[in-house]
């Protein structure tokens, strides 16, 4: 069946193609955006988008939506699962407050006009589990980033400066995990955690390996670039969640300075809000966002995402196991931990961000500062779901970034501590709709190296969101409630050329693709063959032959071959 669509008279915002609120028609055929001439206009289904905003489908490049972490989160928090969103019928039952079931994740993204979401931390040995959960999420396209920064192969090859082997290992691991790119979480620090420690600075030595976080990060950037991956190193910095850590973050960013790439950043630093604290303790903690923003704006090889906290419930879940333990000690809340073969670990701790709590309000303000102070082609909108809270509140963040008036109103209900510890109140900047679309569509697609996503040019995937918002007449600075409401539920969400949601109701259940990156032809896997055999034999509890995921096991895999 050919799905042809004619989206008529919409007001298009498409930053990648430089289109800013122009009235134009969009044509869709066989899941792609095409020229008008390609479509038999009489046959095509017409969508009247008059006075409506037409943009590419949203792209969540960093969320924890699949795998053992979110699933353990669900298992330990039945109180999260009591919110009923949809009763079983034509669609699956859909439940969850902030932590959602897999069907609910797909449904909620679709209703909001998001069509792609990437799982940001896949424990390599658990790759099959992550993929099973991705395969259980309907409606959207997806991918997963395996975690490398504490994997013994990486530590060993960096220590030995075996760069070719490191390159081969990255390619091998991406293929085996059907992963998308190189995620790094607290490099070295999680290995130190196996001895009860952490790596808080770039020069702390990793126990048992003659290597430091500085060397691990540099080595991984180098070999990710040499391998020609479409996505850069994606880094959760050392020293997360500690007052004063903004300096570690900037120091880390500087490690990228000797690398460059024409197409994209060479380092993506994730959920920077958690790594942007000044001060020396929780008593005098303050914002380091301005300094970080200054640095990020001054270079063109780094991108970040916000990690914006949303007031209300959240669940901290990261591969940063020592941080999770610290959080457990700080809050006294439930704590799950998972040390994982020789690959790293993870932890989970429930939290709630309270507006009157000085630290929580500070975190909230820092996230916004980063979003406001950093150029819109360098900062992606994220909540680091579910660490900062629900992705369903992205519209809140969008509206806040566009309206000083809304921020002033919100500032009234939060702890006054933010007034003295952050610069939020003094920021006049209001992002434009164009910039917001950049931060949620074109930029994340560029960061991930997905040429066919995040825009509406000819040849792009026909992932389209239409909102009840007229860019030509809306006053985003004053009508923030209308902005919020419009972005909460799309008028239409179109995925691969099919209408999947309309006016906040699901229309059709579809199954998106899972992208994975094959870079094996850019490296010599043989170089590490005997090492693999040896390490599996000695240190793994499973056989090398039973490690990894085959494409045939996935619902709709799409292999991206790195040239």
């Amino acid at each position: 069946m050919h799905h042809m669509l004619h989206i008529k008279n919409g007001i298009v915002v498409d930053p990648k193609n430089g289109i800013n609120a122009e009235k134009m028609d969009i044509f869709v055929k066989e899941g792609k955006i095409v020229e008008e001439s390609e479509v038999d206009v009489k046959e095509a289904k017409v969508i009247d988008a008059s006075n409506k905003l037409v943009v590419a489908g949203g792209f969540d490049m960093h969320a924890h939506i699949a795998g053992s972490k979110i699933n353990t989160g669900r298992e330990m928090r039945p109180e999260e699962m009591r919110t009923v969103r949809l009763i079983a019928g034509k669609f699956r039952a859909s439940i969850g407050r902030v932590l959602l079931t897999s069907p609910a994740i797909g449904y909620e993204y679709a209703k909001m006009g998001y069509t792609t979401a990437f799982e940001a931390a896949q424990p390599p040995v658990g790759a099959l589990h992550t993929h099973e959960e991705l395969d259980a999420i309907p409606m959207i396209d997806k991918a997963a980033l395996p975690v490398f920064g504490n994997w013994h192969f990486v530590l060993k090859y960096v220590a030995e400066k075996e760069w070719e082997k490191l390159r081969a290992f990255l390619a091998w691991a991406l293929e085996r995990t059907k992963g998308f790119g190189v995620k790094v979480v607290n490099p070295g620090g999680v290995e130190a955690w196996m001895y009860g420690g952490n790596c808080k600075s770039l020069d702390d030595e990793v126990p048992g390996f003659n290597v430091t976080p500085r060397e691990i990060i540099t080595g991984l950037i180098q070999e990710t670039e040499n391998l020609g991956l479409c996505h850069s190193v994606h880094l959760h910095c050392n020293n997360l969640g500690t007052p004063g850590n903004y300096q570690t973050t900037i120091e880390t960013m500087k490690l990228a300075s000797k690398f460059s790439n024409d197409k994209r950043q060479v380092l993506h630093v994730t959920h920077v809000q958690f790594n942007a604290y000044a001060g020396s303790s929780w008593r005098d903690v303050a914002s380091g966002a301005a300094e970080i923003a200054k640095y990020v704006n001054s270079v063109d090889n780094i991108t970040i995402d916000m990690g914006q906290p949303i007031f209300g419930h959240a669940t901290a879940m990261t591969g940063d196991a020592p941080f999770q333990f610290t959080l457990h000690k700080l809050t006294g809340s439930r704590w799950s931990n998972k040390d994982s073969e020789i690959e790293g670990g993870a932890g989970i701790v429930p939290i709630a961000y309270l507006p009157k709590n000085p630290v929580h309000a500070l975190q909230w303000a820092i996230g916004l500062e980063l979003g406001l102070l950093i150029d819109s082609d360098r900062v992606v909108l994220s909540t680091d779901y579910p660490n900062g809270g629900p992705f369903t509140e992205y519209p809140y963040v969008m509206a806040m970034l566009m309206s000083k008036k809304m921020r002033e109103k919100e500032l009234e209900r939060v702890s006054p501590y933010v007034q003295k510890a952050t610069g939020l109140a003094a920021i006049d900047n209001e992002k434009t709709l164009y910039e917001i679309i950049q931060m949620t569509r074109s930029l994340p697609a560029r960061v991930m190296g997905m040429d066919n996503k995040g825009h509406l040019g000819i040849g792009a995937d026909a992932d389209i969101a239409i909102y009840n918002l007229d860019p030509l007449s809306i006053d985003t600075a004053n009508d923030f409630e209308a902005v919020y409401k419009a972005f909460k539920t799309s008028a239409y969400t179109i995925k691969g050329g099919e209408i999947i949601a309309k006016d906040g109701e699901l229309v059709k259940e579809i199954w998106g693709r899972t992208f994975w990156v094959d870079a094996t032809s850019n490296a010599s896997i043989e170089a590490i063959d005997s090492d693999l055999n040896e390490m599996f034999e000695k240190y793994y509890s499973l056989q090398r032959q039973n490690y990894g995921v085959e494409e045939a096991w996935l619902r709709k895999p799409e292999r991206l071959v790195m040239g």
Partner: protein
Amino acid sequence: MLKLKPKIDFEVSVEAEITPQLATLSSDEISNFQVYYGKEKTKLGDLFEISKEGDDAKLVLDGDFSMVKWVGARMDDGEIVVKGDIGDHLGAYMTGGKIVVEGNALDWVGAEMKGGEIVVEGNARNYVGCAYWGDMTGMSGGKITIRGNVSNYIGEKMGGGEIEIFGNAGDFIGTEMKDGTITIHGSCGFVGGDMKGGVIKVKGSFEVVPGFKKVEDGFEGDVNVGGKGKITQF
């Protein structure tokens, strides 16, 4: 006053979130009140004989209601009298009013209740006045009286209010309790683990878990959580 009587022996359980407020509605509204019979959504009037006398907020449940769950849940006022046995979740989350059960109750009597009173003349089972899975605080106000025996998990995570058991109880009385009083006239098993505050009084025999220090009139603990709960014998 509204009187309900089962029309049939229930094959599977019935979920009927009925409160005394129901008695103030019209006969039609009462009869059409939605309940679940297994997976079937059905009307109160299809499962129960309904007789209404006047408009006062009082429910009388006549017959075997042991398969009927959630009676009196979230009620805030009025009275419920159960002439026989009753099912799970009796008076869960209730904030006011009174429930009297002449027979036995099952699990979750007065779970997370905040106010009002529940009296069970017979026995109850597990989780009396407890917190539901994943919640931080159990019963926080009101009073639960059980004249017979109860099983395990009584007043766990209790944040206030009173539980009085006239018979015996099982294990885990007042675990993680924060405030309020539990009185047991009979004997019971493990008492007070991870207790932070509140008072537990037992007349018969009981087992204090390690973590409590002997003080003048009983035990204080649990030291494992820096608690100042009190366990005494009377």
